[in-house]
């Protein structure tokens, strides 16, 4: 018994030895990057991380100190994410948190931010709950659910082939899916777009066998489908739906942009997905082309929207810390309000009103890709651009 006590005490002593050194001026600025690196959104998490890393490599230093990114895997689980956030802040001494793919995770961290007391900037969470959620919580990334709904509804109304269809709404069964579904249903009702199931159908996040949902869609009498599904899953659903012959007389509108790597695996079956999002590599501006070139050189991967908006979000964060002149959370938060960055998809500005971003967006449809340096066979073709004012929300 005594021996064991000694062993356990040694363990305790070992933990004591792990106390971090005091920070000094040459110490790097640590930013905690919270992304899913395993589970169903893993590919998205990788792209988020790569975009942030790219920004860090370009920016190199903030406040004269080198940027150090510490990456943690959330496995798309809110409780794991919160403990990783605690580890990043308490153990590693990170001055800010960035990233997060899932709205469920984002909300869990945001609700704990008082304890953590660091600014938290998400580059992907789309839930509208983030508007004005907390002075330390920001969004600079993927379009929010309301902005996407506005973009999609405008797009549907402007496209004769989509305007008069009856839509079946299918969402992922968690915070983001519910919010996205509600937004679309409400806006569709206002604009005279028919929705056959206003209570919208919900599928668990981990669904991989969509056959029953596809059967339900067929049985519903709809001729259009509006999906609020996680980017990495969209091509899986689409491929299976295609196998069931769903698209012979149905069109697909998506709230989230389909993941570019998964699109490649899905191939022809994934043509014709319509949706509004921040970015596609089809955008033809000097800034976009330059960014894509650098991204391709660094990662040899198809430039994805997840990478693009996390790059921009990271730049906003770094510039915010620079502008604040210190690592004090409230000072950084004040500096972030109103900050903007010109990047691959135009100017992205964080609104001082609600801590969330306003920027241009594009309406896209997936189809066969033209010649391109990435070897991509499928791409999102830009149909039109939206101005920030069109998308809202008003300030």
């Amino acid at each position, binding site marked *: 018994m005594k021996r064991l006590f000694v062993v356990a005490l040694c363990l305790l002593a070992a933990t004591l030895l792990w106390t971090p050194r005091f920070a000094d001026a040459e110490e790097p600025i640590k930013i905690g990057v919270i992304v899913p690196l395993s589970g169903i959104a893993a590919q998205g998490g990788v792209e988020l991380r790569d975009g942030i890393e790219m920004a860090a490599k370009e920016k190199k230093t903030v406040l004269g100190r080198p940027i150090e990114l510490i990456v943690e895997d959330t496995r798309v689980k809110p409780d794991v994410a919160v403990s990783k956030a605690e580890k990043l802040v308490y153990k590693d001494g990170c001055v800010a948190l960035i990233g997060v793919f899932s709205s469920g995770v984002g909300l869990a961290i945001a609700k704990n931010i008082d304890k953590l007391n660091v600014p938290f900037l998400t580059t992907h969470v789309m839930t509208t709950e983030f508007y004005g959620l907390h002075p330390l919580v920001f969004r600079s990334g993927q379009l929010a659910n309301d902005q996407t709904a506005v973009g999609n509804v405008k797009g549907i109304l402007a496209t004769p082939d989509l305007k008069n269809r009856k839509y079946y709404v299918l969402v992922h069964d968690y915070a983001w899916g519910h919010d996205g579904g509600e937004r679309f249903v409400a806006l569709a009702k206002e604009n005279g777009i028919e929705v056959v199931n206003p209570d919208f159908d919900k599928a668990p996040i981990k669904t991989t066998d969509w056959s029953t949902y*596809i059967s339900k869609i067929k049985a519903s009498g709809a001729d259009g489908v509006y999906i609020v599904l996680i980017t990495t899953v969209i091509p899986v659903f689409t491929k299976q739906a295609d196998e*069931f*012959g769903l698209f012979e007389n149905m069109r697909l509108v998506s709230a989230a942009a389909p993941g570019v790597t998964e699109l490649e695996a899905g191939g022809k079956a994934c043509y014709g997905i319509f949706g509004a999002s921040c970015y596609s590599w089809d955008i033809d501006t000097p800034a976009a082309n330059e960014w894509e070139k650098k991204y391709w050189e660094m990662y040899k991967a198809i430039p994805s929207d997840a990478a693009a908006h996390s790059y921009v979000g990271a730049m906003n964060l770094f510039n915010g810390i620079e502008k604040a002149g210190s690592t004090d959370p409230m000072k950084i938060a004040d500096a972030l309000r109103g900050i903007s960055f010109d990047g691959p998809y135009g100017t992205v500005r964080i609104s001082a009103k609600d801590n969330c971003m306003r920027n241009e967006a594009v309406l896209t449809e997936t189809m066969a890709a033209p010649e391109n340096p990435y070897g991509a066979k499928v791409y999102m073709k830009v149909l039109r651009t939206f101005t920030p004012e069109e998308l809202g929300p008003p300030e």
Partner: protein
Amino acid sequence: MQTLISSGADIVFNSLVLGGVFLIVAIGLNIIYGLSRVMNLAHGSLYALGAYFGFTIVGSGLNFFIALLIAPIVVGVFGLLLERVLIAPMRERPMIYTLILTYGLMFFLDGLIKYLWGNETRFIELPAFLNQTLTVGSISYPSYRLATLFGVAGIMGGLSLLLGKTKIGTTMRAASNIPEMVSVLGVNMKLVHMGGFVLGCVLAGLAGVLAGPLFTVYPIMGHEMLISSFVVIVIGGLGSLRGAVLAAFLIGAVQTLAEFFITDFAMVVVYMMMAVILVFMPRGLLGEGKFE
């Protein structure tokens, strides 16, 4: 009316396909339990491994049918290794240790899969003639799913031939029911244990390759399959092959119907069935099961 027929056909076929996959996995699990006397918690991971091997084989340009043949064999060889190195030495110890061992094995194999193949969802490419949509009247159904049904029937046919008509099969059946007698008769029980385990692994791998194009190939595909297959073998009766047939299609149908009619707590019904069977009919629906 048209949509009714179409939906009805969808439900029937979806149930059969789901049940079919459950069946192959459950039979493998039952064989391992009956012959090798092991409750194999790593079975789901072996199923996933089969799917991943299938993916790699097809990905390297070979025909899908070759993958269907080779992947299960690879999983079988792997199973042989596992049986010799890990399972056999544990046979004298109380069952709980083997249970926890196969549990650790499951974690290990899952980690191995992620390590070797990464986290993303993978697709298995099918040859063009399998990748079509069959349309009869108002019913459109993927031809691959129908082909799977034939595949399952073929596998079951092969198995029943093996078990019913061959000497090896008869030995296996006897060893499953009355192991003591069989060993007294001079049959090498070590071979029986080994053979049973390997056969079970082959079946798991085969189910994985079949299911790959259906459900996509992703790292945790084994987990759900494991739980579902446990439910199936409990309801069908532990070790009962005929019971597994009944239970697999029953569960396949219940799950499909439940998902269709938006009954959120549908799976609760399935688990309750499992609980009821365990308490009141532990020998399963057909009364053929056995608990050690």
